[in-house]
């Protein structure tokens, strides 16, 4: 069964906060939920399907559903890290197509900035040493990784180092990804980093984990977002522009029993599946939201999605090719995770939200892509260097 045309994104909301020490995570989920429903012209009572991931307090979605007062006939708490919310769009469309729900609400929120949990290393300096994050009891890989100081940033750094070795990618090329994001972020009043950066600025920032520098990293921010997905008959009655889900797919990649290959991501599987379902090709995409936890993440995913040949991602992003208005592939026009926002250390939600803005013509006028009729949002959750889930969604303005 294809989901092409079976569901629409009717509401999208990005919380404007970037630091929320005075609000609970549940409160932020509630504010995001209300924001997306108001955007759609729907009410909390209309929601009959709820989707959340590991950022939701409590387990299994019970706590947030309870907090919001939801009455549900469908729930899905699929957890694939930062890509979860793109997976949720896919699952919501499937559930709607199968008649399991009519109005699906997807929420994300978190406060890593207020709580001092960057997930990466550089905020965790102290006499006690490097903070090591365990993912819980009984994780089979951890005894063989954590004692070696395995962290988010140095595992992504190893992807970058290998990419440089195999394909000749340079630090300057990585820097171009940040430069493009900063060009967009200057127009976003909510963005954490609004300063326009040059390649030299990025190269002058300190090395955190070779070859990644501080400016190769995304921001650490509080905040959240939410989406409302609904069936075509309901979407057509709402006052908002119609954003149709044309195709979506997800895939997983891991260490394959020790046959490690860092040259590609699970996007190499999810991308082609989503394009096939949407019946479009990379050449049809006018705007792309590409998860940008680090600059290298963008380069690997652009290759895997077929915007350029494997190994050519560095050359592709250079010279401003990702900048809206001048580049071939306008990306992350909100400033992305690199400059705008990375709520709960999970970037998938904001990727979908900015794609919806572009399709509705509601991006900032300075970064709005002309005639933006088909857009893509793609995310990687987990760690590109260990285990991760990728998800791709292709959307069309109707």
């Amino acid at each position, binding site marked *: 069964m294809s989901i092409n045309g079976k569901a629409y994104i009717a509401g999208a909301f990005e919380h404007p906060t970037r630091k929320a020490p005075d609000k609970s995570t549940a409160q932020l989920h509630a504010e995001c939920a209300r924001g997306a429903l108001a955007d759609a012209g729907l009410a909390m009572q209309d929601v009959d399907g709820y989707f959340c991931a590991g950022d939701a307090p409590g387990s299994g979605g019970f706590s947030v559903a309870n907090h919001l007062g939801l009455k549900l006939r469908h729930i899905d708490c699929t957890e694939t890290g930062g890509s979860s919310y793109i997976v949720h769009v896919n699952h919501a469309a499937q559930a709607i197509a199968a008649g399991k729900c009519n109005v699906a609400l997807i929420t994300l929120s978190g406060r890593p900035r207020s709580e001092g949990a960057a997930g990466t290393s550089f905020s965790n300096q102290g006499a006690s040493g490097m903070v090591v994050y365990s993912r819980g009891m009984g994780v089979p890989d951890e005894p063989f990784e954590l004692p*070696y100081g395995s962290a988010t940033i140095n595992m992504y750094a*190893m992807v970058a180092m290998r990419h440089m*070795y195999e394909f000749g990618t340079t630090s300057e090329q990585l820097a171009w990804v940040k430069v493009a994001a900063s060009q967009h972020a200057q127009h976003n009043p909510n963005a954490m980093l609004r300063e326009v950066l040059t390649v030299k600025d990025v190269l002058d920032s300190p090395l955190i984990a070779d070859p990644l520098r501080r400016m190769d990293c995304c921001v650490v921010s509080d905040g959240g977002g939410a989406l409302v997905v609904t069936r075509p008959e309901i979407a057509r009655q709402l006052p908002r522009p119609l954003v149709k889900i044309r195709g979506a797919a997800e895939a997983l990649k891991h260490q*394959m*029993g020790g046959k490690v290959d860092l040259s590609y991501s699970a996007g190499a599987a999810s991308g082609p599946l989503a394009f096939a379902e949407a019946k479009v090709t990379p050449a049809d995409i006018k705007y792309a939201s590409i998860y940008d936890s680090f600059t290298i993440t963008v380069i690997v995913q652009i290759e895997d999605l077929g915007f350029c040949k494997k190994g050519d991602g560095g050359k592709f992003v250079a010279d401003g090719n990702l900048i809206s208005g001048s580049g071939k592939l306008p990306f992350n026009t909100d400033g992305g995770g690199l400059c705008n926002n990375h709520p709960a250390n999970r970037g998938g939600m904001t990727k979908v939200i900015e794609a919806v803005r572009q399709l509705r013509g509601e991006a900032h006028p300075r970064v709005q892509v002309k005639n933006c009729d088909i857009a893509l949002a793609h995310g990687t959750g987990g760690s590109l260097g260990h285990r991760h889930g990728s998800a791709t969604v292709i959307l069309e303005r109707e």
Partner: protein
Amino acid sequence: MATPYRERTITDPQMNTGDEPYFEAAAQGRLVLKQCGDCGEYHHYPRSFCPFCQSENVSWRDAKGTGTVYSYSIMRRGTPVPFCIAYVTLAEGVTMVTNIVDCDLDSVRVGQPVKVTFKKSEGGISMPMFTPI
């Protein structure tokens, strides 16, 4: 630029049931791998079955203890002491997360030949690490 290797505090591995022989071998200065008796594949980290063919006919083998650096990164911030994390591809074909030690960390390169050595965690558990040959 030179970044000499410095000893750092290594957190203890939180072993799961079945991992003990790996670390007991490490305490004796041996790096061991699981090999499948049916399909012949080595795998890492060790499991009680082969992740390639699902056979439970797997047994511990002594690895040669040599390999090459598949990728690496020197962690310079957020850590009291710089250290080099790496994926090393062993002679047996499997690639493992490890550290490169006992050298100028800035001299580490992808493709560099390395051999196993062992460093103790804070609780005294031996961890296989690698140093340039």
